[in-house]
């Protein structure tokens, strides 16, 4: 028996999906862009950034967590939802210390690229200016916690792929922060290595490789060339 192709509607267009797909997986599979930060095709959905919030049959839901079923009516690229996303991005920008012009990740940063995509032109909210010292203890890697958006991708990659559990989340509320697993709390006292998946997974500029600064000039980097919405194809 031939399987009937299943589909749901995304912004009025039919979108086929495979059994078990979330809305975000299904969209990614066919190259359709739904803005997101904490979701990564290689990892289970996390649902913390809220950027992928869409309307499913009129009700808000995170596209990374909702399973696709036939006949769903999903809205994503609407003025209302994009305005919401912009506010959420602005929240992330004011929560940390994000100075793009001096950041080595500029042009390769998913937060920055998504903010451009959503037309963010300023912080809108008052900055928190938190005091977060950097961790330069590791010979090959630098941690700049000022840019952390708490997506937990490094936590997950280190635990699930590298089998090391180098990172964890501590605190609560606005004091929630990334923890490093060592008695000193320093990365230099962990077994983290340059080749670890966790070393390259950070979507923003927290986990940086030392002595590699500005190898590609700003202006010629990944999202400088093609906006994030144009780079969906081939991720899954």
């Amino acid at each position, binding site marked *: 028996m031939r399987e009937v192709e299943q589909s749901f509607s995304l912004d009025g267009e039919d979108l086929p999906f495979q059994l078990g797909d979330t809305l975000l997986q299904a969209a990614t599979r066919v190259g359709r862009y739904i803005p997101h930060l904490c979701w990564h095709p290689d990892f289970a959905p996390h*649902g913390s950034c809220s950027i992928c*919030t869409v309307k499913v049959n009129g009700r808000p839901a995170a596209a990374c967590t909702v399973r696709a079923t036939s006949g769903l009516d999903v809205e994503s690229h609407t003025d209302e939802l994009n305005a919401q996303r912009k506010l959420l991005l602005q929240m*992330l920008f004011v929560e940390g210390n994000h100075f793009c012009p001096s950041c080595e990740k500029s042009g390769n940063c998913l937060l920055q690229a998504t903010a451009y995509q959503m037309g963010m032109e300023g912080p809108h909210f008052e900055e928190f200016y938190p005091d977060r010292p950097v961790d330069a203890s590791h010979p090959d890697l630098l941690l700049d916690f000022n840019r952390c958006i708490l997506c937990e991708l490094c936590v997950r990659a280190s635990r699930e792929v590298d089998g090391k*559990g180098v990172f964890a989340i501590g*605190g609560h*509320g606005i004091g929630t922060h990334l*923890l490093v697993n060592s008695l000193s709390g320093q990365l230099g006292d962990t077994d983290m290595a340059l080749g670890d998946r966790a070393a390259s997974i950070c979507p923003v500029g927290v986990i940086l490789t030392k002595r590699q600064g500005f190898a590609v000039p700003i202006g010629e980097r990944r999202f400088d060339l093609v906006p994030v919405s144009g780079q969906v194809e081939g991720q899954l």
Partner: protein
Amino acid sequence: MTHVARGLDYVKPDIDALLARFNRDPHALVQILRELQAQQGWLPRDSLAEVATALGLSLAQVQGVASFYRFFHTQPVGAYRILFSDNVTDRMLGSEALLVDLCRRLGVAPGRVAADGVVSVERTSCTGLGDQGPALLVNHHHVLTQMDAPRIALLATLVRQRVPVAQWPADWFAVQDQIRRADVLLAEPPLPGVALSAALARGVAAMLAEMQHSNLRGRGGAGFATGLKWSLCRQSAGSEHIVVCNADEGEPGTFKDRVLLTRYADTVVEGMTIAAHLIGARRGFIYLRGEYRYLLDALQLMLQRRRDAQLLGHAILGRPGFDFDIQIHVGAGAYVCGEESALIESLEGKRGTPRIRPPFPVQSGYLGYPTIVNNVETFCAAVHIALRGGAWWSAIGTPKSTGTKIHSVSGDCERPGLYEYPFGTRIGRILEDCGAHDTQAVQVGGPSGVCLSAFEFGRRIAFEDVPTAGAFMVFNRSRDMFEVARGFAHFFAHESCGFCTPCRVGTALVVKRMDKLAAGHGSRHDIDVLFELDKLLHATTHCGLGASACNPLRDTIAKFRPAYERHLKSLYFEPAFDLDAELSIARQMTGRDDPGAHLEKLT
């Protein structure tokens, strides 16, 4: 190495014995940390490392859990740790002045440890004693009620003389039940075992049918049909099923579960046992909020009494194969753990972060087993349904909201305490009964509920009109409703778990705006931003805590707008800072206060 909390020597705890008692089970982490802290006052890093190694967890994981719960301390605290319950009702009874007075007498700043390490004084979220505040929580174990100036003066002396808390005046620890109006649930409790026998006699299918027929809806706030929840759980495949009683009564202004667990604890456990029979569970948990730690010993005794009476344990009521027992898990100060999936995470020894749903707990809950989580009051109601049937229950209240509901009444009224009414009761009726006069507003269901103004007092308590989880806080016309909302905004920011962006950052931004308004720097623009945040949080948060965090704000802006506008400096934009005020430190340092040391006033 010995651990010394400054000023008081603690004996090095026997971590090995503690870990052995919990079978080195990593899922017991929250309980292990709680008991460890009870022994040594706080949780030093090397103790956490020892626990981590023994449980097969990483130090960072253990630190992550220890730093999540508000009652765990990873820095030294005072040997006397005094927490003032900081609900609006405590404040209305003068708690802030008492806190200031106590700090002055002890020479310590709020939130700091005294230089000699003897004492620290802080605020904490509502401790569930709103009808007999101002209330204190001392060393996370002792509750003190009805504090006043003379008591605070004596307390300061006792602390300075280092008199053990157990030797403080006994009447300070008196907790009253204050049952003002009883209906079904607050009447004389049924004899232990009678309802359970009745449920067994009905048989599983028939008893589940009675539950469904009763149309009982969960009393924790969400109002999901209890019979349906239990049926779904029974039908879910799993090698084990779990019953959880949610006694994490964290909604500010609610204290009914405290009384149910004091005077009706047998009924609560009987309800859990009936549920266990219906869903096929062998294990149950009572998630007792950390603030109710003082009830633990009595609850353990009650559980043992029931085991001795064959009402718990093996072959309950002599029925082979009906095995069910209950553990009590004591929380550690986290409002979000009232959300059922966060509660389950906490039961598993983790940070209390709500899970992605589906799957729902009835499908995959504690350790992946099908699990029901019900409120204390819901289990009590189930006992009465077992005794008298679903039809009898559904005849009480309204068709959509059957049975009775217990209200925790506090605030501006003559007779605070518990009031039980059938659903469908008018707000105004409750106000008359509790002796409230000149009432401006009532916050029903706590900060995450709804704020009603005088023109709405004809509305009725019911899921279809004014739903409630049980809090009923009364405000007379002397109260500033803006300040009420600001207090609640601080509560939500303090209790946010920090997982999702909108709640973590949004609740902190709301606090900043409200504080800006309170400081007299507000403009209409700030109110627009508050509206914007309310809308965003409702649409994008991971769980209900964030979604409801702006409810008091939205209600009070809509209904008590003048209270806000009194705080507006201008109708247009105002910066959050005052340039001239920023120079005050420089003026202090230079000893100048002449006109030249001030910015020119723009007119």
